[in-house]
């Protein structure tokens, strides 16, 4: 947004740095060096994943970092070992349902808390922020007992329901709503729209960036969710990609070539969503922190 703000920044006046002067270009060079190192460390595992998928497990074990010719073998092994269409469908279905419902319920609440303030609702909001600090580990056991009493173990509902009202996302939407211009709402009221119409016809289209950032966060969380699905999904045909690929690594002699091929497939959806929505993501985050 304001990336290139203030082009008037003065021409590089040499700062006085005390008793001795470090030439300016040295600092600059160090910055580039460290950033390049950080970028290398961040990207290398991705490179490793792609290279690994083309090598035999033995070669991966001894750190071969060049492309091999085993891609087809690894792919074939992967597709014969696991029921790929099924596990990816399970993952996608859970992630999509989870994302849509979370965004719907939590953005409504975030909007509601910000737009219609009352003392009582502010108290509820404060209590919610307190609950935000309760770790999932503390909820895990009672949630599981509850879900089994509802006879929901092994259903998509069991995976998705507990996360739909996300305090973090409600908080995020409330923060972002502070930037929603009040004049827009007033104008809509004059035009005779009711509160729900204002939300759907005015607020939703205006807050696209906020929703995009939330989609990235929530979709990634759902797609990558591990602990809770591990607990509530007990039938093999319901397991998600995350669960199945993870169980491959814990075998006695894991076939890393095949597993890395699987991890590429498991990473692609989040990568694609991220790159599609990246620009909006940054804008959305800016809106929420302001």
């Amino acid at each position, binding site marked *: 947004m304001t990336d290139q703000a203030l082009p008037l920044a003065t021409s590089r006046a040499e700062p006085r740095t005390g008793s001795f002067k470090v030439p300016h270009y040295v*600092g600059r060079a160090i*910055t580039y060096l460290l950033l390049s190192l950080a970028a290398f*460390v961040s990207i290398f595992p991705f490179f490793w994943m792609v290279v690994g998928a083309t090598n035999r497990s033995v070669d991966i074990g001894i750190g071969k970092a060049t492309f091999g010719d085993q891609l087809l073998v690894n792919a074939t092994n992967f597709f014969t070992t696991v029921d790929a269409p099924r596990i990816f469908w399970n993952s996608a279905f859970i992630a999509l349902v989870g994302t849509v419902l979370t965004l719907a319920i939590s953005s409504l609440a975030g909007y509601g808390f910000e737009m219609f303030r009352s003392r009582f609702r502010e108290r509820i909001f404060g209590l919610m922020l307190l609950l935000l*600090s309760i770790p999932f580990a503390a909820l895990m056991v009672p949630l599981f007992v*509850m879900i089994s009493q509802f006879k929901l173990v092994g259903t998509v509902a069991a995976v998705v329901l507990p996360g739909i009202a996300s305090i973090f996302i409600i908080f995020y939407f409330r923060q972002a709503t502070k930037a929603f211009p009040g004049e827009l709402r007033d104008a809509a009221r004059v035009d005779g729209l009711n509160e729900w119409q204002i939300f759907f016809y005015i607020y939703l289209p205006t807050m696209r960036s906020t929703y995009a950032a939330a989609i990235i966060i929530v979709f990634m969380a759902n797609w990558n969710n*591990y602990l809770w699905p591990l607990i509530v999904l007990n039938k093999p045909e319901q397991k998600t990609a995350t669960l199945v690929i993870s169980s491959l690594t814990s075998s006695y002699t894991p076939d890393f070539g095949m597993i890395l091929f699987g991890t590429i497939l*498991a990473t692609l959806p989040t990568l694609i969503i991220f790159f599609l929505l990246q620009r909006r993501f940054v804008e959305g985050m800016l809106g929420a922190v302001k």
Partner: protein
Amino acid sequence: MANARLGRTEHIAGWTFIAPALVLLGIFMLYPILWSLWMSFQVGKGMNFSFGGFANIIRLTKDPVFIRALVNTLTFLVVQVPIMIGLALLAAVALNDPKLRFRGFFRTAIFLPCVTSLIAYSTLFKSMFATDGIVNKMLMGLWIIQEPIHWLQDPFWAKILIIIAITWRWTGYNMVFYLAALQNVDRSIYEAARIDGASGWHRFWYITVPMLKPVILFTTIISTIGTLQLFDEVNNITQGGPSDSTLTLSLYIYNLTFKFMPSFGYSATVSWVIVLLVAVLSFAQFVIARDRSK
């Protein structure tokens, strides 16, 4: 900001917008919390339990595995969170410089790890840090180490490996919060400081850090909560081993509930230790942040 009185229809609308979320939070959050609080005073196996008073708390103090999990978790917290917050801040400040080239590339590269799925990155780290793996090979090639490190078999290095893994995954995530907040800092302040002769380090320490304090506090608390709940990484990379050296409280709760004969009361007690730690540490961080501003 000034709050106009809400009309009656608006008041009702306010409730309808938040009601679905409140109902869900009541069922899936408030009720389980109260349930587990009650449960932590019950003893017994499976669904047969009876009131045990403070029996579970006494059991905690005598349970060497719990003590080890507690110490491990706190070790991860004390070592990992400051390193990550520091790195994220430095990266954000460096990337906030409008004269820096390839900013988009660096920003995306550093953020990329947190887009990966947990399972992808645990698998990658497991294979990269094998004894004969690529990381040891590189370190030996650069003459940083002479002998390969037994990352997965040595209790000390296994802890380091977990710390490296979490730092790799979450630094970029925290960085984005700082980058966003830095957009609001008026650049002319930096120019003024520069003219007054403040060095880069001074500008960072006396301008950037105080300006970003609310965001730093927020991310520190979020990271503290995340680290206290650490589960996925240790379960997938080291399974809590070798010899419980990377066992965390969350993993212990999971083991107590779903691996051993379930002891719901005792595992609820362990989980309330985490709640207590989060509460105490968040409060301490708030107090420290307030003191520094005086």
